[in-house]
């Protein structure tokens, strides 16, 4: 009797312990340190709001957050567009299930190499004397190398779209596959055009997938620092980069305060997404 009562707790215990040790505890530490004081070499236990004050009142922070949000919005929009159409094509235009799986696996092939390698390989391609500029110049399309291709916002967005589109494809593909084909037939029988089917049937039913993909992309882009650093050539800032700089200079409390603010912001974004779409409906 008693055993059957504690059994569910025992079953939940491993996950609880793991999450407590590796998620709750570190976050609690970060929150705690964000109130500490520091000088150039040490941090002191304290309870001060200067870290938050300095972060929030500085126009740099605002500009950096806005810049990060700008990347997030652009990358989200582009990955959604590209991701949705790839998933749509796989789900509705490829007839055989085998072919669908094969093509889906083809999408994941780039992931066999490291994230950073895939990103860095853009650099020689886009550079001033890179492959693209050289080809365009030989073809006579341009006579001056295009400078905006590398070390610019364009390069950052391009690399992020390249890196993160699959995170959008996978969940959307998953939800599209679950759509009952009879619904589409019914819509067609009722006289809906292809566009109406898309907007009235498929997109509403794909919402959970879109929401999950969006959460992936938004959190990845908000927390990114290495792509921004390499592809902008250090010309642009992101919140992650700002934190990396602070950590590098031993300013842990300032970085912790930044991390807490970023965490709150990302959680708000995720909450907003979940508010619009009930993802549990489909899981």
């Amino acid at each position, binding site marked *: 009797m008693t055993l059957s009562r504690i059994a569910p707790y025992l079953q939940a215990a491993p996950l609880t312990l793991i999450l407590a040790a590796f998620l709750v505890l570190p976050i609690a530490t970060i929150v705690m340190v964000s109130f500490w004081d520091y000088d150039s*070499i040490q941090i002191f236990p304290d309870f001060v709001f200067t870290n938050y004050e*300095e972060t929030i009142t500085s126009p740099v922070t605002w500009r950096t957050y806005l810049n990060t949000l700008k990347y997030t919005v652009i990358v989200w929009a582009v990955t959604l567009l590209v991701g949705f159409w790839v998933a749509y094509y796989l789900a509705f235009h490829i007839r055989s299930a085998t072919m669908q799986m094969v093509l889906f696996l083809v999408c994941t092939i780039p992931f066999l190499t490291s994230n950073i390698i895939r990103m860095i390989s853009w650099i020689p391609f886009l550079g001033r004397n890179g492959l693209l500029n050289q080809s365009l110049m030989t073809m006579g399309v341009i006579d001056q190398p295009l400078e905006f291709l*590398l070390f610019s916002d364009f390069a950052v967005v391009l690399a992020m779209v390249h890196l993160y589109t699959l995170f959008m494809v996978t969940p959307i593909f998953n939800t599209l596959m679950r759509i009952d084909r009879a619904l589409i037939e019914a819509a067609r029988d009722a006289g809906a055009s292809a566009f109406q089917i898309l907007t009235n049937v498929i997109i509403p039913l794909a919402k959970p997938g879109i929401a999950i993909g969006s959460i992936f992309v938004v959190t990845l882009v908000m927390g990114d620092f290495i792509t921004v650093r390499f592809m902008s*050539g250090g*010309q642009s*800032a992101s919140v992650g*980069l700002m934190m990396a700089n602070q950590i590098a200079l031993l300013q842990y409390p300032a970085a912790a305060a930044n991390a807490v603010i970023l965490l709150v912001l990302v959680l708000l974004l995720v909450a907003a997404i979940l508010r619009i779409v009930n993802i549990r409906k489909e899981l």
Partner: protein
Amino acid sequence: MSQKTTDRTGAKSAKSGKPAESGAGVSRRGLLKGAAALGGLAVGGQAVTGFPTVWAQNPITLRQFGTGVSNLNAIAEKCKADLGITLQMTALDSDAVSQRVVTQANSFDIADIEYWICKKVFAAGTLQPMDVKKIKYYDQIVPIFTTGKLTPESQIAQGTAPNTVSFVDGPDSKKFAPAPTQWMTLIPTIYNADTLGIRPDLVGRPIKNWKDILDPAFKGKTSILNIPSIGIMDAAMICESAGIVKYADKGNMTKAEIDITIDFLIKTKQAGQFRAFWKTFDESVNLMASGEVVIQSMWSPAVAAVRSKGIPCVYQPLEEGYRAWGGGLGIAKHLKGAQLDAAYEYINWYLSGWVGAYLNRQGYYSAVLSTAEKNMTPDEWAFWMLGQPAKTDILSPEGKVMYTAGAVRDGGSFKERMGAVACWNSVMDEDRYMVRRWNEFIAA
């Protein structure tokens, strides 16, 4: 100099341990053939024999970490051969080094740190000063590190000049002494004078001053390094050269001076003068080699790396002088007894010439020149230290041709280069403010 590198402990210790292990492997295999697996294990267990010194009876391992420049495998191997002391080396970037000295005091025995890092971290009390009486070549250490003056009449440069943080009052003191005492914080290992690197084939005009990086002709083709504490110094050299501001001390700016410098950088950045900001050695090499930039902050081995690809690159001496940096070995507070003796022995060996010659052959400078000279050929010495044209091909320590006969080193002799130091890498009192403003510059 601070090089962003990966932790190479594994690779290094694996390599330094190789000769002994492969020997053991052979004998182990032989024994295994005779089905004597147990015996093989026993042999494998005590494979390392034949130490030349006392450490053979009592094997000592020293864990050293520091920036990539002087954490060289070859030094660990030679140290093992000469002294029998196993050096476990870890290469980190300067920021990681400072963090580790302060926060993980027991994770290292020897810290190979830069002087400005020393100023920052020594107060944390995790390093112990060294008794100069136990340093055999103390009297021959280049005076930059003791009195601060290369020659009696030279001026002490701005910034964290090594002599200002080289000594403390006593064995337990954390306060830097203004003049040499018996207690030295770091034993200098390696130092150099940094300047701008240029692509002579692409700049199309002589480069003479730091301000030439602002020339509109190079719009979108310049770069400076994005390590705040070093980048701000290059920026200061540029601003002063361009007549924007005159600093009382570039290495310790006032808030107003920081504001002027950063505001000017932001203006320059927004005008599109810079192509990129680099943070790692490799990035600087790639920017230069690919022709993305034609003039930028650079470190001397990066110039050599560009040149080794067959691309012309010059480490251009400039009228205003150099920005210098230097590193040294510090001993962890927790070392005592035999380990402390071994650390002193290692440091004395470091200064005894072989390492010095090795470093000089890379284009850096070593702390005790007299012993290094004995380990170099007269031609090598004349080329690297006296700035004379090479009579024969100049080889790198690994035996690759670095310069062909007739070449002259950029910047000339040791005295010309180290005598023209305008400022040292430093850490400022207004460090926190500077970093905030620097982030603003990068975000602008």
